[in-house]
């Protein structure tokens, strides 16, 4: 453990560090706090939300922010605050699951390609070039067009398109580590190829992918809400932030609150993940502050 890390053991010192000195930690802590906050909101949504997010209540429609409805109501009289709270469930799930599948597929394929080399590697790199040639969102939309619009299609499309970044990242690292001494040592001990790759090499190059996955969550949440906004992702009446913004767009002249608050929720969640990514990158020493 480094001297710096030891000095972090003290909570008081940590607090002071967060205030002025340790910028890296500030990013990490603030980011983590925001994301934990959203996670708690998502888990406890039924207890926190003051109203039901789906049930219509036409008597209260299009009301501005008030004590009764802190963020106002939409054209069906649904409480915006409650819908934003329930929306955290969907959007957080989109961000986490949406990154998980590409992460697993990309890491596995990239590791195998980098370690195996030869035609496996060449083939994978060619496929990768082709997928990368497409604009990310356009290819996703094209895949969703063939499947049915919906959340499942979103995950499938994301897994098919998103794995390339992880594969490229891991492959490059595996190529470097493959020739290192500890791998030679493991090989000389007679370990199998899969054991060397997944137990020795992969754990050493996963940090970069994890940091990248945090900044990727931002892109995935934005992509997910954009696709839902277009009407091709999460379907109404489900409370999802992109859907809410789409529904509120017809009322921007009279009821600005319907579109404004879900958008702020997206911004805050994305900001949390961005900070988390920056903080993790600095902690792992992958990026200079």
């Amino acid at each position, binding site marked *: 453990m480094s001297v710096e890390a030891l000095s972090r053991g003290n909570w008081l010192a940590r607090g002071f560090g967060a205030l002025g000195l340790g910028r890296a930690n500030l990013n990490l802590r603030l980011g983590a706090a925001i994301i934990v906050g959203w996670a708690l909101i998502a888990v406890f949504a039924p207890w926190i939300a003051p109203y039901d997010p789906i049930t219509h209540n036409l008597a209260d429609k299009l009301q501005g922010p008030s004590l009764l409805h802190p963020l106002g109501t939409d054209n069906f009289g649904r409480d915006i605050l409650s819908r934003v709270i329930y929306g955290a469930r969907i959007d957080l799930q989109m961000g986490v699951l949406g990154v998980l599948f590409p992460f697993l597929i990309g890491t596995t394929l990239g590791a195998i390609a980098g370690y195996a080399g030869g035609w496996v590697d060449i083939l994978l790199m*060619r*496929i990768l*070039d*082709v*997928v*990368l*040639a*497409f*604009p*990310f*969102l*356009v*290819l996703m*939309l*094209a*895949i*969703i*067009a*063939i499947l049915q*619009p919906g959340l499942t299609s979103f995950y499938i499309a994301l897994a098919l398109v998103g794995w390339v970044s992880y594969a490229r990242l891991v492959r490059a690292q595996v190529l470097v580590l493959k020739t290192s001494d500890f791998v030679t040592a493991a090989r000389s001990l007679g370990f199998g190829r899969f054991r060397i790759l997944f137990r020795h090499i992969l754990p050493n190059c996963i940090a970069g992918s994890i940091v990248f996955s945090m900044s990727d969550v*931002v892109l995935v*949440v*934005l992509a997910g*809400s*954009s696709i839902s*906004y*277009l*009407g*091709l992702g999460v379907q109404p009446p489900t409370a999802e932030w*992109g859907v809410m*913004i789409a529904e*509120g*767009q017809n009322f*921007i*002249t009279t009821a*600005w609150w319907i*579109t*404004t608050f*879900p*958008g702020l929720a*997206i*911004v805050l*969640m*994305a*900001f949390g*993940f*961005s*900070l988390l990514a*920056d903080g993790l990158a600095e902690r792992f020493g992958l990026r200079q502050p």
Partner: protein
Amino acid sequence: MHRYAFILTRPLQLIPVLFGISVLCFFLVKSIPGDPVRLLLGTKSTPEAVARIRAQYGLDEPLLTQYIYFLKNLSAGEMGHSLLYKMPVLPLIAERVVPTLMLVVGSVLLTLLIAVPLASLAALKRGTATDHAIRGFTTAGLGFPAFWLGIMLIIVFSVKLGLFPVAGFGESWLSKLHHMVLPCLTVALALSAIVTRNLRASMIAELASDHATAARAKGLPESWVFRRHVLPNSLIPTINLLAINVGWLIGGSVVVETVFSLPGMGQLLVRAIFTRDYMVVQGVTLVFACATVVLNFVADLLTVAADPRVKI
């Protein structure tokens, strides 16, 4: 080898990618669930009619033969017919190019207009409150959903202030430009977050570089050093950054076109998905992918032109 030799060799390297793009687009339409002929003729079609259409479109041939037909048609500019618009896909896309092109070019120009002053300010006043504020913008800006930002701009500048039209695309060029301001600003605000961040970093590196120190040692004023030595050098990586983000830019324009009801290729794509107009989906996807490849090539060209040291 001449440093511009890649203009001749690079397109050869692009052939596998273009080939891959065509294969992917071909299988995109092939993997539509259900029978495409029944889709075309409706459910009440007779088996004879189905067989006739099948033969007419070569759907009874092996997959490889079908793909060769597809390539042949493609090289003749034939991308099939739109079911909704009842016209060939290529002219349909051509009609929609102008708004998308204006949006992409305008956004990039506006991005530079925002990012260069902000990055310069942050780099020159490094560590101050100004720097922190600008860095805060770059961190937060990454997470701004373009569609929401667009609507917020509409609320403020169109609904409240009445400065710009709410949506649509004008008739005259002046009116078109007027309609493009808010869409371009929407994309530019998001993109400038990324660009400012990188530009600031490369400016800080250039400010500390030997050639800047040498220029200062000659007695040149700091403003001259910055404008003539630091700025041009730090803009070169930005060209590359913009090239990397071309795909993102096009994706963003798809969404922003929908927000502002701009009759561009992105809106065409989204409508085609809703109406299951698969040939249009295929055509637009193909054109967007080729545009990305070409723009990346252009970015390489610009980088080499801007920096004699670069070899590709």
